[in-house]
């Protein structure tokens, strides 16, 4: 293999077909068995990965009667249609549950970012002997599996009084301020809070690593100019952290959107569920129309996919954020 990488002018075009000087000539690339094997392997992996997705799309486009009569592994005899999507949109009230999800996710993301940036700001911009311990605590909390605390948490939720200050009613939606049963249990706010609690650890970890790259001189000069701590946080540091905040917001959105567990355990009312757990409503006591479930699951996938396409840049930024220390 090594002789291919002798950097002689004559071999350059073979390795780097795009290099200047050869632009006019037809490009020839030697096809090597290793390369063929690699591409076959990659192709097979792509097919393996995409197979379930395409299977779900295919199922969702078939009427269930067709699957019953001919089996799920068969060509469609009655043609494909969007009938399952129509049914799921109306029967499962998909739009209603999208709104439920937003009611939980949007305040959740904003609160998490505010709180996490405060902690990260204090622990990175000011010298305090517990800086490291606090950061470690937040990171450690991130590693706690949520399932282990579910029993005590259930009782905490059942015994925490929350004020009932009326509700905001928009057509068939009724959003309580803050609790319609005077408890934390079975409330949107309960789900928002538990998301904030569990995501703050990770967000603090990432944001503090980012804030370490901001020199302390900026904070110090703002102090000299007479800004108080809150003002430095809001007007100086947060604007500088915009890329980090955007990346975190996209990540947190997908994390909270994908949640199934908390909503299932801490909500009792079927009509308060976010879309992920509401998909269960498509299953009956015995009978399950799997084609309908496939259609519902694909509809539920759309918002995170949209977010990913629109904010791709931030996703990638989010992956490497804080990977190097300042």
């Amino acid at each position, binding site marked *: 293999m090594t002789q291919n990488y002798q950097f002689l002018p004559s071999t350059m075009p073979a390795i780097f077909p795009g290099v200047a000087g050869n632009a006019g000539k037809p490009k020839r690339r030697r096809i090597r068995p290793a390369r063929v094997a690699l591409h076959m392997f990659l192709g097979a992996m792509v097919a393996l990965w995409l197979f379930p997705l395409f299977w779900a799309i295919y199922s969702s486009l078939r*009427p*269930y*009667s067709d699957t*019953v*009569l001919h*089996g799920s592994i068969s060509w469609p005899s009655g043609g494909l249609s969007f009938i399952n999507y129509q049914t799921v949109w109306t*029967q499962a009230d998909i739009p209603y549950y999208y709104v439920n999800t937003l009611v939980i996710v949007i305040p959740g993301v904003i609160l998490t970012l505010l709180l996490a940036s405060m902690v990260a700001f204090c622990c990175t911009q000011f010298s305090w002997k517990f800086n490291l311990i606090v950061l470690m605590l937040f990171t450690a909390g991130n590693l706690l599996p949520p399932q282990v605390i579910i029993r005590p948490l*259930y009782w905490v939720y*059942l015994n925490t*009084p*929350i*004020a*009932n*200050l*009326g509700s905001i009613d928009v057509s068939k939606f009724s959003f309580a301020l803050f*609790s319609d*049963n*005077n*408890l934390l*249990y*079975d409330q949107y706010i309960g789900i928002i809070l538990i998301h904030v609690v569990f995501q703050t650890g990770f967000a603090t970890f990432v944001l503090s690593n980012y804030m370490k790259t901001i020199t302390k001189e900026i904070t110090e000069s703002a102090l000299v100019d007479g800004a108080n701590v809150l003002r430095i946080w809001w007007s100086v540091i947060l604007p500088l952290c915009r890329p980090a905040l955007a990346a975190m917001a996209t990540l947190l959105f997908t994390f909270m959107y994908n949640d199934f567990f908390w909503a*299932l*355990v801490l909500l*009792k*009312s*079927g*009509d308060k569920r976010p879309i992920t*757990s509401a998909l*269960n*409503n*498509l*299953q*009956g*006591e*015995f*009978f*399950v*129309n799997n084609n309908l479930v496939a259609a519902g699951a694909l509809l539920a996938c759309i918002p995170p996919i949209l977010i990913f396409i629109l904010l791709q840049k931030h996703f990638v930024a989010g992956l490497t954020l804080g990977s190097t220390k300042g």
Partner: protein
Amino acid sequence: MNLDLSRRDVLKIAGYGSLAAFIAACGGNTNTTTSGITAKGGSMSLGSYNTDPGNKKGTQALVDAFSSANGGTKVKINTVDHGTFQNQISSYLQGTPEDAFTWFSGHRMRFFASKGLATPIDDVWDAVKSNYTEGFAASVKGDDGHVYAVPTDYYPWAVFYRKDVFAAHGYTVPTNWDAFKALCVQMKKDGLIPIAMADKDGWPAQGTFDIINLRLNGYDFHTELLTGKQPWTDPRVTAVYKKWSEITQYYSPALSGLTWQQGADQLLRKQAGMYLLGLFVSDEFKASGSPADLDQLDFFPFPDLGTQYDAEKALDAPIDVYMLTKKSPTLSADLGQAKAFMEFVSKGSTQVLYWQNAPGSIPTASDADKSQYPALTAKAVQIVSSAKRITQYFDRDSRPDFSGPNGMQGFLLKFLANPSQDTTSLQGEMKAFWDSLPPE
């Protein structure tokens, strides 16, 4: 002025404020009229697991009918899907449940009744019990002798088949074990899977265990075994597995990877000859969208095994019930309405209204109008009413943790993987698992 509020003060103020709002909100319900144990008007709430489209519509129709019959009682329904409702029932009943809820009879009802999570309704039952047969009356009693539920619908388990397949091959319905096995042999010769079995989800095989144990060892032994009063190492259990192993060779191939719906598809597509399942098998036939197939669906009771217990004609016929919770925050205010609701659902006319939307649920009340029943339903009513003993299905008659995937579901899959095995060690595992369970 000192406004130095502590955290407790803030909480107190918030608490009183919300209490005041709550009392003000309750003040609206002044149109309640009480007569005896029931009350008209007012409001109540219902936790429902009916998410199948038909059952959901039926529940709504039933609630609307109740509302207009009971002076406009406002009923708030909380619908949660069946699976989640069952998985969370324990935390649901201990939290802030609705006033009334949909549930099952059998051990599952008695368990929550004995934990003090259900309200006894002996007074309602006294008013409606003349509308029920002995079997239904026995199914709603708790361990303490009080009544905790109103039975509203049921469905039987039996051996389903297609009439046209039987006619085409000249098969006759087998009434005893030898005829049943001979039919299996013939079907196999004719290229059919004699008996569809689809046990991916673990529970369908329990139906076969139930019926063979009932026929071989009788109702009393069966219920004692499922509640731990007889050991799983008993030779009578060994006999059940031995009997069962005589027909396992006729089962669907790869049965541990098939869902019950795929099993039903085998019957529907004339690949399989028979299928031991509940009446809900007809749901899959309906979903096929061809009424001609549904018309061909028929069933017969499991064949006799030549024991003294054949005369019991016992079978699984799970009964669905309505119950009242205990910890509902609104129950003390709504008790009259909730009891009126329980009385209402015990009426034949109410149950027929529900059945019209959800035809898999056969009414339990004696005064239900049976004239509209299609043949399949009428036959189901007939075999259940001729049964001298009715069981509720393995997972409703036994502890949930014992009948679940780590317990009996797993053990039966192990048995079906190698039916000719000596079951002594498997039965030992069952006993050891039962003994390892914490007291309920």
